[in-house]
């Protein structure tokens, strides 16, 4: 079935060439051996792309889309003129672009494999929530491990599927919006994703439907050198509302891993989309993600984005405010620990009258960790009644940390308004001593200071996510003391 010999490694050989079992799990991270049914091998070529498309039994237009994207990816330079040179350290030849367990999405908790359950256990998800999680779509490597909430929302006419499935079953909707918000050649990594994408969610919410419960997906990278390239497309039809949440955790590996997702949101007239991410990548992951939404008339798109971990994250969720009175919001929290660089921000492109946008970005730099805020707010001259508010706050924990802010705010014309505030503060020794003198350990004191710093943002998160975020911060701060 695989098109070439070089790509038809049987599972056993793959395991030998890439001994998942030999990974050091002693550092508090975790991974379980998985037998991959389909494997595209390492490196990227036209054959890799053809292999992925064939395994997924895709229509010819998709293969064409992928091959075109591959050409763009190969032709585009790395964006190192403005971004960190660390990008040059990605070795594209050593990355595994497609793996699949070859299992169908699971419907019930009982059908979920034990080792996957074990992972949820390690993630510290309480018993009640594990039951709740049977309504969660969890992506294990390239394919969804299971999903059943989709049956529930299907009663409202909502389509909630993984993108592979949706391409097969709903090509008419998919094709109309796919790659329109973020064109293939938007940047080198969106081109890469367009060539090799696999997994991710597709959601269509019909007119006027308000989805009561948040739709969820957990993503996780679980094979050495394996890049994850999920592709998510959410379309909220007129007057509809949907909340989507993704949580990312990844086991730690000794070689670099690439995660490069593309997420496109379309909020048609009067629709509301909220997209929430709490991610915790292992500190060898390059996390290079393109996220953008288009908000039509009176529509609202809100990104809530928490970035913890990774070696380098570059992510600037954006909203194109295309219709009159559209609203866009980005609330972002980034935590950069030793050896990590969080290069995050937001883009607000105002393209209609009376559009409003709000950006609140908080970054925490610990040890040698580095945080960068990069933002674009664009309000052209011919528009009127547009408003933007941008707030960037940075917290530094110890003197070696670094933080930079690059806000690019272009407001033309005299009928628009913007305000920008930035602050930098430090967790000082006196504050830590004060808390220690109440019996908190240094680590607990740091966690509390950091949680306090992000508290006003974290409060806007759904309960279980703010709890998880707090737990992740506690874990990060535990290791940063000494």
């Amino acid at each position, binding site marked *: 079935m695989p098109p070439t010999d070089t790509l038809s490694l049987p599972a056993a050989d793959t395991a030998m060439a890439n001994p998942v079992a030999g990974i050091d799990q002693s550092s508090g991270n975790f991974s379980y051996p998985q037998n991959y049914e389909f494997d595209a091998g390492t490196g990227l070529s036209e054959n890799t792309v053809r292999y992925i498309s064939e395994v997924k039994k895709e229509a010819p237009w998709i293969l064409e889309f992928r091959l075109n994207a591959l050409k763009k990816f190969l032709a585009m330079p790395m964006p190192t003129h403005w971004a960190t040179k660390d990008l040059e350290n990605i070795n594209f030849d050593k990355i595994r672009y497609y793996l699949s367990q070859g299992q169908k999405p699971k419907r019930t908790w009982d059908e979920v494999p034990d080792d996957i359950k074990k992972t949820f256990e390690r993630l510290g998800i309480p018993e009640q929530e594990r039951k709740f999680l049977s309504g969660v779509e969890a992506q294990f490597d390239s394919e969804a491990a299971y999903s059943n909430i989709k049956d529930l929302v299907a009663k409202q006419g909502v389509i909630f599927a993984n993108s592979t499935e949706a391409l097969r079953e709903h090509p008419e909707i998919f094709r109309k919006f796919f790659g329109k918000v973020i064109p293939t050649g938007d940047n080198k990594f969106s081109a890469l994703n367009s060539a090799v994408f696999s997994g991710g969610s597709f959601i269509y919410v019909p007119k006027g439907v308000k989805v009561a419960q948040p739709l969820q997906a957990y993503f996780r990278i679980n094979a050495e050198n394996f890049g994850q390239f999920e592709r998510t497309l959410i379309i909220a039809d007129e007057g509809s509302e949907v909340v989507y949440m993704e949580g990312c955790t990844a086991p730690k590996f000794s070689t670099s891993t690439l995660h490069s997702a593309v997420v496109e949101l379309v909020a048609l007239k009067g629709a509301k989309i909220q997209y929430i991410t709490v991610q915790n990548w292992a500190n060898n992951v390059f996390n290079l993600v393109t996220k953008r939404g288009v908000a039509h008339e009176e529509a609202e798109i809100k990104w809530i984005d928490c970035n913890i971990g990774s070696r380098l994250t570059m992510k600037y969720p954006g909203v194109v405010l295309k219709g009159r009175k559209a609203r866009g919001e980005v609330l972002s929290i980034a935590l950069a620990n030793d050896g990590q660089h969080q290069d995050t921000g937001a883009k607000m492109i105002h393209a209609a009258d009376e559009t409003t946008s709000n950006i609140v970005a908080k970054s925490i730099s610990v040890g040698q960790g580095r945080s960068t805020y990069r933002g674009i707010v664009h309000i052209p001259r011919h528009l009127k009644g547009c408003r933007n508010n941008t707030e960037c706050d940075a917290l530094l924990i110890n003197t070696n940390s670094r933080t930079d802010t690059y806000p690019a705010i272009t407001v033309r014309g005299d009928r628009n308004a913007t305000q920008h505030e930035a602050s930098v503060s430090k967790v000082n020794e006196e504050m830590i001593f*004060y808390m220690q003198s109440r019996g908190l*350990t240094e680590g607990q004191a740091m966690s509390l200071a950091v949680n*306090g710093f992000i508290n006003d943002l974290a409060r806007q998160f759904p309960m279980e996510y703010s709890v998880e975020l707090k737990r992740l911060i506690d874990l990060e701060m535990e290791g940063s003391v000494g």
Partner: protein
Amino acid sequence: MSCLEIQNLHISIGDKPIVKGFTLTIASGEVHAVMGPNGTGKSTLAKAIAGHPDYTITSGDVLLDGRSVLAMEADERARAGLFLAFQYPSDIPGVSIANFLRAAVQARLGEGEDLDATAYYKRLYAKMDLLKIDRKFTSRSVNDGFSGGEKKRCEILQMAMLEPRFALMDETDSGLDIDALRIVADGVNAQRGGANSPGILLITHYQRLLDHIVPDHVHVMWDSRIVKSGDKSLALELEAKGYDWVKKEFAAA
């Protein structure tokens, strides 16, 4: 019955000696006032006993029920039963008093032991009623934007909740007007007299605090050590004669 013994304590900041031989024993339930002019090392003493990393104890010892605390980190000392009421408490933006205290109470529980949230709030509200503190107070961020009086009340509330065996109160009266002073003093007095009444080391340079928190013992500190001890009348004498009297009497010694 607990006992805090400060034995011939010498304290330096960097190479500079600040406290040179301070000795004092406090039993639970007792209030010892330490008075003295600025710069005699009173605050240094309190912070060093609490375990501030900037202060080095060069000799002497601090024993809590016979056990030296000097090898302990500040947080271990706190959990062992020491409490420092700060002259200038730090603010912790975004952390409510209720959550801060909850974390502090949780830190005192054993491994795997979980805080009973209902019982905790019940106790918190009882203490607040005792100290006449409005319920809304605990939802505010710790010391963030507080007036001088509010900061000190926050310290007293923490002390009431953590029930230390010994409290070191550093210039608790500084920055308070007379009404705030009375409220804070009432808060301290409310914690005295019971079975778990803490021993208190009260650092101040004004007699007026001692009108409200009546001490069992008064010690005058001069040139980095205690030069005179007595009962509460010593504070009045000091107030009448001024610190110049101490200077004259002890400068030569």
